[in-house]
């Protein structure tokens, strides 16, 4: 059953790549939705295992939370936000897709290389997942760097958070429940705040292109 977990972690990484390959904001959101779904599954599997072994529900609860929040609520919220703000088709990313993709793969290799120091003390199965999830974080960060639109950056941030979730669920044991809970609350508020800010930006700047946010320099 742990095999599923491994596969899922790979799938999550893949979804990150796919996200990087996307061109349109709507498709960002969808890809994110899919990625969150994978994570929910992963949490579910781990949860079942944990329920069997230790009889703890918290991971299952987290699974539910993820489903509710990240698969349903947040993408919907983003869709709505995006629907409100002005929308014109334009090239959203600073480099072209192939280069971005190759950079991402480079990131994965880099992460693997840098986590090499741990190989002696942590079982390989965990290293694999660790590498995958950490690379997801870097890819998310890189996504934020590479996208101009505000919403693109929110998505990137969400991907980073996803990466963090996956990392928390390394192996069988997750973080203490309260921490995960706090993480969720923070996440929600963060997204809300960012959403509100996006509205305001759109009001004041008539665009959500963050390249226009460059008045403060020096």
């Amino acid at each position, binding site marked *: 059953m742990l095999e599923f977990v491994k596969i899922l972690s790979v799938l999550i990484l893949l979804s990150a790549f796919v996200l990087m390959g996307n061109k349109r904001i709507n498709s960002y959101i969808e890809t994110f939705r899919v990625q969150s779904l994978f994570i929910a599954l992963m949490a579910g599997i781990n949860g079942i295992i944990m329920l069997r072994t230790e009889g703890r529900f918290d991971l299952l609860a987290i699974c539910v939370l993820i489903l509710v929040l990240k698969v349903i609520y947040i993408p919907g919220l983003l869709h709505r936000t995006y629907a409100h703000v002005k929308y014109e088709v334009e090239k959203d990313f600073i480099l072209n897709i192939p280069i971005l993709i190759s950079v991402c793969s480079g990131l994965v290799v880099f992460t693997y290389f840098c986590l090499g120091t741990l190989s002696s003390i942590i079982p390989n199965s965990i290293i694999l997942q660790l590498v995958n999830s950490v690379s997801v974080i870097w890819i998310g960060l890189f996504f934020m760097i590479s996208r101009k639109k505000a919403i693109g950056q929110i998505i990137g941030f969400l991907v980073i958070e996803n990466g963090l979730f996956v990392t928390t669920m390394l192996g069988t044991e997750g973080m203490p429940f309260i921490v995960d809970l*706090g993480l969720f609350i923070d996440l929600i508020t963060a997204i809300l705040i960012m959403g509100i800010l996006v509205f305001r930006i759109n009001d004041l700047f008539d665009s959500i292109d963050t390249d226009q946010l460059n008045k403060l320099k020096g």
Partner: protein
Amino acid sequence: MGFILPIIPVITVLLLFLTRKSFLQHIINLLASGLLVIGALLLTYKVVNQGSIRYGFLGGIFYVDALSVIVLDIVIIIGLVTSIYSVGYLQEEIRQEKIRPGQIKRYYLLMYSFIFTMVMALTVNNLGLMWIAIEATTLASAFLVGFDNNKYALEAAWKYVIICSVGIAIAFLGIILFYLSARGVLSESAALDWVALYENAKSLQSPVLRLAFIFILVGFGTKAGLAPMHTWLPDAHSQAPSPISALLSGVLLNSAMYGIIRALTIVNCNLENNIFTGRLLLAIGILSILTAAIFIMTQRDYKRLLAYSSIEHMGIIAVAMGVFTPLAVFGGLLHMINHSLTKSMLFLSAGNILQKFNTMQISKIKGVLKILPFSGTAFLLGLFAIAGTPPFSIFSSEINIIVALFSGGSIWIGVVLVLLLAVVFAGIVASLFRMFYGERDQETLQPGEINKAGTGAIVVLLIAITLGGLFMPSYVIELIYQAQGLILGI
């Protein structure tokens, strides 16, 4: 006694929700900050006498010791000063019709939730919860930064939220690795309890810890405004309302630095030396000071200048922690205190200047000393203080750090530090001093202080930092020594 500290802000927030009259809101604000100070002082007294305190309830997540109390006191005292200042500040803003009376409520709500998050961050003993609280500080203060709701403020807020969230996320990765490094050593519940971690530091897995420290350094470093993660800081500090800038600079940075110090303690204890952490911290610290020096030299906006000077001082503290000798740690902690007092004083007096002249452009301002005799003088002296000129208090901590550097063998870093500090001073003088002198050219401005109470607070701070340079109250020193012991594991 400590557990009331988080509660007071919560109650305040609830009360503020209920009240409608701005008058009442001011009263509540003052009362709350006063109560906080009393509570904090009692707590400090207790800690000084009986060392660390752990509270049983909520699974014992509340924990206070000398280190957290130092930062806590800073938070609450600066909080008091700011709240006193805010009253006059907000009234003046309303008089100038920059904000609507309705916004006062929002202001206080945000401010107290901000304070609440910071108090939380400083009173929990669980790295995870501390992280949550610190992340929450970003969220609470985001709208405060964007409070003026113009293009610039909004841009600043956006950058603030994005960059800090990203940074903090990276810090969380570090915390996960901490957790991972404790696999098989500690039970799950205790695996993030930093006391437990500290006690079993020797048996944690070093390679994981090293990675963890890197992520935590970058993550909390972002909040603490260390270069090259500092980029949000000048924007946020310059665009936020002045009292909030004071809070950000005097308090928020320290709480972030607190997180780094906690992690640092464990990692050094585990590695049994400070070579690894020392190099990273020294590099980042010196880089921060250098960056600040470059930016201060040709700065045109006085609030930005102050912000960069905050970066510089965080850098100094980082250097102190990197050296990690008793003297250095002592100096670092002392520097935390002195810097927050001085810097918040500067931001508050800058706020007066801003409200008087309605510009942040240095070149547009003349004759501050004539128009604002008190806050102008405070600002001038404060600048000398912040640049590390004796007899002000920042000098006394800087000298400790420098001595530590030189006696710790890293002479050349010491030389670089001293010269960089001098350059920063030169930069401040060169770019900022012209606004103090000369006749006032705007006839519309009539001399005289606005915001009397606030100015009073400023003057009190000024006196504090002037005397603090030569004579510290001995129990403060006692407290610092305790914290130093905790950090060094003596």
